[in-house]
């Protein structure tokens, strides 16, 4: 009996990581996979970002591909349960590893901006090494697959299905936002974090706020943010702007008063952000990353 349990244990550990994915339906042909509002960990297998797909007349368009080869395979399986149409097109919204490392599970054409493509080509392997450290086994077989199609037009026509493309920046140096005028769904990628504290690893706060002000003009029915659940609410964009302003103002004031990083972190959390998930950890990361650039203005 003991041996049996042992053998079972060995085999179960050989089994691929199960992400337990279920797409959430937004309307007739549009769905998204809701990424966990957590940081990368062995338990979530890196499933922390949203991935969306649109079923068109002849094909499926996939927006981002998640953080691993295995994740890519599993969303593919879930999509195949809904439709037999081929996943012909992928769009990588930006170069962060939780959004493109599932690319290698697909044979599709992959669209991205020049900048995003170069970042993926140059730093993709570094991202994998880093995630193997954090996420471990779920990263098995993950390889870099760079985009092969250049994204540069205002309208992307995929098999007759038209998507509006906005070329913005601020979260990274190149953030692609898609607006589907047929369904009025706005795919904001990581320019919007819904009720989840924004991550600022490669951010330019001023540009980010500008981009968000651009997005405020769009009359959407659904907003699929890069992180946090999809919503019909108009509030998330405003909330993000106010968080980024708060971050910017806090760092400016702190630099002016000569504070140390840890003195900033000890300040109480403003009420309006208490409902954000991951506030403490993301705020700490942002302060550590960004504060030195504010201190540069020392006399």
């Amino acid at each position, binding site marked *: 009996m003991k041996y049996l349990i042992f053998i079972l244990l060995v085999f179960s550990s050989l089994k691929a990581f199960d992400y337990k994915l279920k797409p959430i339906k937004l309307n007739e042909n549009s769905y998204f996979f809701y990424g966990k509002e957590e940081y990368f960990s062995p338990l979530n297998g890196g499933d922390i970002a949203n991935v969306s797909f649109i079923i068109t007349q002849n094909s499926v368009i996939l927006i981002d591909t998640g953080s691993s080869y295995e994740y890519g395979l599993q969303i593919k399986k879930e999509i195949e349960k809904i439709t037999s149409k081929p996943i012909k097109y992928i769009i990588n919204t930006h170069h962060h590893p939780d959004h493109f490392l599932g690319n290698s599970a697909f044979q599709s054409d992959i669209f991205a901006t020049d900048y995003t493509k170069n970042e993926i080509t140059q730093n993709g392997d570094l991202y994998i090494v880093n995630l193997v450290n954090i996420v471990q086994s779920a990263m098995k077989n993950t390889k870099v697959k760079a985009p092969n199609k250049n994204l540069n037009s205002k309208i992307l026509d995929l098999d007759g299905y038209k998507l509006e493309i906005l070329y913005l920046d601020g979260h990274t140096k190149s953030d692609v936002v898609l607006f589907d005028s047929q369904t009025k769904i706005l795919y904001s990628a990581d320019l919007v974090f819904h009720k989840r504290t924004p991550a600022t690893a490669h951010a330019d706060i001023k540009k980010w706020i500008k981009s968000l002000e651009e997005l405020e003009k769009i009359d959407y029915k659904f907003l699929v943010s890069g992180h946090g659940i999809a919503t019909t609410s108009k509030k998330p964009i405003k909330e993000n702007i106010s968080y980024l302003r708060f971050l910017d103002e806090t760092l400016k004031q702190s630099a002016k008063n000569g504070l140390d990083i840890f003195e900033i972190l000890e300040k109480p959390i403003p009420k309006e952000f208490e409902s954000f998930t991951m506030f403490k*950890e993301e705020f700490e990361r942002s302060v*550590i990353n960004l504060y*030195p650039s504010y*201190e540069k203005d*020392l006399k």
Partner: protein
Amino acid sequence: MKLIYLLIFSFIFLQNLNAKNPISSPTFDDILKDIIKNDKYIFDDENIEIKVPSFADNPIQVPIFVNAKKIKDAKRMILFADLNPIPKIIDMDLKAIYPIISLNIKVAQETPIRALILDKNGVWHIASNNIKSFGGGCSVASVTSSDTDFGKFLGKINGEVFEVEKDTYRIKSSIFHPMETGLIFGNPEFYINKIVLKDNTNILSSMELFSAISENPRFIFETKIKSQNYIIEFSDVDGNVFTSEIK
């Protein structure tokens, strides 16, 4: 039977000796002995605060803040990270500054960090904390030195003084320098190994630095001596001396 009691007793005793060190590590005893020789020491987390990030995502820039102001008239302060290939971080002669420092360091892996403060009676107070990180920070070339413009900025100093409370003047200063460890083939060591902080006439503190400090280092010092004109002098291992007034 007596022998067994003795064994049990000595076992418990040894366990207790270890338990005094709040974070044990295989290198701690050797590094400590190397620094303080046979001086007396106590573990004193109560009077010394070491602040570190909850997780150090970026192993080449890990902010540290040490505050040992509760130890009056402290003479010297030393920081080291047990599991770094270059454990020592900074060795400060406290003369006229408070036992407070803020700086960024590199970590090679998850490591305990210690602050040793020598009090006026010649006893070392030791505080510990743990830096959680996946590491790798000591074996990457500095970003600065791969910048082609780096000659232009080398040694550029910024600084500002803040009166944080009555009779406490905080001096913030940073300098553009690659702080190369020499651990990477082809990149010889090149780092600031000395800082002298002065007011018009007196030396407030002199410090020895090590390459475990991050590139383009930034510091916070605090002194009770008011001055219209502090002077900070950085020297590196190549013999360059960079001086600046801080007002």
